[in-house]
């Protein structure tokens, strides 16, 4: 297990290193002069020179890269050019929208997918199975931002149960959760469709195993064998997918935040893109990539801790 963990840790560090190099290169090297890019075509040369000095562009590329990375490691994400505040502050304001949204969506996705997948597998080939599988086909084909617009049309505009967008802050937790409900549903549904399919096929694999036959032979009913033996074992691959989905939900939230005007990381990225504030874009993208890579790493480790076969394979 320790050897496996060390191996994974090495690849985690390499991934983060390469990720930081790629992002740094895309932002700071490829577009030519970032200062000129940020200020636009009509900028005066002395303004550009001032920004260049402020961003440290007069230093060598290697120095800049190391300054950026050591800054990130110490929680210093740089200074936003447009907001004139530290990027870390901007991020810490908005993470409290994006992170709860992703967690909320993840819970919803699991709550929908588990029962649906188990029900479909236990009635394989029956009308219930066919209906659920048909619904998942629709679920994976729906663009989530369009689904979000439809939810707004029905539940905010016509029924007036929810507001069409915006976020009141966590001062009143119930109102805050209510504001995140439609976005979370829009994010969760396509993911729930994928998860239900994984749950179903994983459970069907388990139901074909010898130990289920043994359980039935020793006198367990179909229901008991399903819940006590099959579901438990089927959950292992499902949990892996859930881990992967979390990072997708965090990144996918970027678009959903646009639909609902939520002040999260996604909006921060877009506002920074249109303001050409590359410092903010660079750090927020790196933060998201970092989270995704670390979550995947944790899932790998957790999976290996539960299933010794995986350690042996690696």
């Amino acid at each position, binding site marked *: 297990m320790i050897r496996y963990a060390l191996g994974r840790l090495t*690849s985690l560090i*390499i*991934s983060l290193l*390469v*990720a930081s190099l790629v*992002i740094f290169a*895309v*932002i700071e090297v*490829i*577009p030519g002069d970032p200062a000129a890019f940020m200020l636009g075509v009509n900028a005066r040369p002395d303004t550009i020179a001032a920004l260049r000095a402020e961003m440290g562009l007069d230093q060598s590329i290697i120095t800049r890269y190391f300054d950026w990375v050591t800054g990130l490691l110490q929680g210093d994400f740089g200074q936003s050019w447009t907001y004139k505040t530290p990027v870390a502050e901007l991020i810490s304001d908005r993470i409290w929208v994006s992170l709860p949204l992703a967690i909320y969506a993840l819970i919803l996705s699991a709550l929908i997918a588990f029962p649906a997948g188990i029900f479909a597998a236990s009635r394989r080939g029956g009308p219930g199975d066919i209906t659920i599988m048909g619904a998942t*086909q*629709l679920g*994976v*084909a*729906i*663009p989530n*931002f*369009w689904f979000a*617009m*439809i939810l*707004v*049309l029905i539940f905010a*505009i016509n029924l007036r149960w929810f507001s069409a967008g915006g976020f009141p802050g966590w001062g009143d937790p119930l109102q805050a959760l209510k504001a995140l409900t439609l976005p979370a549903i829009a994010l969760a549904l396509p993911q729930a469709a994928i998860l239900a399919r994984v749950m179903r096929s994983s459970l069907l694999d388990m139901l074909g195993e010898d130990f289920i036959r043994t359980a039935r032979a020793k006198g367990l009913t179909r229901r008991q064998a399903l819940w006590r033996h099959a579901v438990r074992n089927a959950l292992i691959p499902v949990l892996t997918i859930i881990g992967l989905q979390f*990072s*997708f939900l*965090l*990144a*996918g939230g*970027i*678009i959903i935040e*646009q*639909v609902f005007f939520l002040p999260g990381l996604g909006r921060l*990225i*877009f506002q920074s*893109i249109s303001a050409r504030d*590359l410092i903010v*874009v660079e750090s927020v*993208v790196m933060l*998201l*990539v970092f989270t*995704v*890579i670390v979550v*995947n790493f944790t899932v790998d480790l957790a999976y290996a801790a539960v299933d010794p076969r995986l350690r042996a394979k690696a």
Partner: protein
Amino acid sequence: MSRNLIIGAGLSVLFICLAALSFIWTPYDIEALDIPNKLQAPGGANLLGTDHFGRDILSMIMMGARTSIAVALVAVGIGMALGIPLGLLAAARHGSLLDELIMRGNDLVFAFPSLVIAILITAVFGASAVNAIIAIGIFNIPVFARLTRGAALPLWERDFILAARVCGKSAARISVEHILPNITNLMIVQGTIQFSLGILAEAALSYIGLGAQPPTASWGRMLADAQTLVSIAPHTALVPGFAILLMVLGLNLLGDGLRDWLDPRIRVARV
């Protein structure tokens, strides 16, 4: 042939025909503004209604199909053109440093949140259909590389490959002449799935303004324009949304259907 295959092929062909037809004919000119005729409901002179500039929505859907299909198709092409050779190479040199490098490189690209990187690429290099293609295409490469390697490895153990080696064929020739034809079906099925994911990705990128730019019509842009109009003219949001949904659904069903149809082992297992 299964029902999936027929419905999937039907939907896919419908959209491809609409896109093809748009090269020679659309009901109206989509660049001609007709403000007095704006936000007409579907069913009148304009079959699917008009948008906030009075443009015919059916015509825009046809032109948008062209954009979606072109972007997704080229993105799949990039993934196949680079991914399949990489996968063949990794399988032919199984266990070597090259194999290890290719596979670790794949893992790395997989680890990136694709949407975030696509946004980064289009933000820095400018929003355009071409940059959207590149951004989507990059993430198709590891999909095909991994699939090709996985399918090619067991083939290398087979007797007919051994026979080819005895004949003195090089690893490169064996890969092209013997391995590739045996994994074509798999690639077609995966290509269909990646095609549908490409359509969704293109729609998402153009929805947030980072895909095809006006005046090029795009389903994602139509939805972005419709966002503020959804309460007064729901059809402006419903029509492009259903277009995306049906196209993606069609491709997914086609992929499932093709897999069952092309792979006799699965077919036997179902009977």
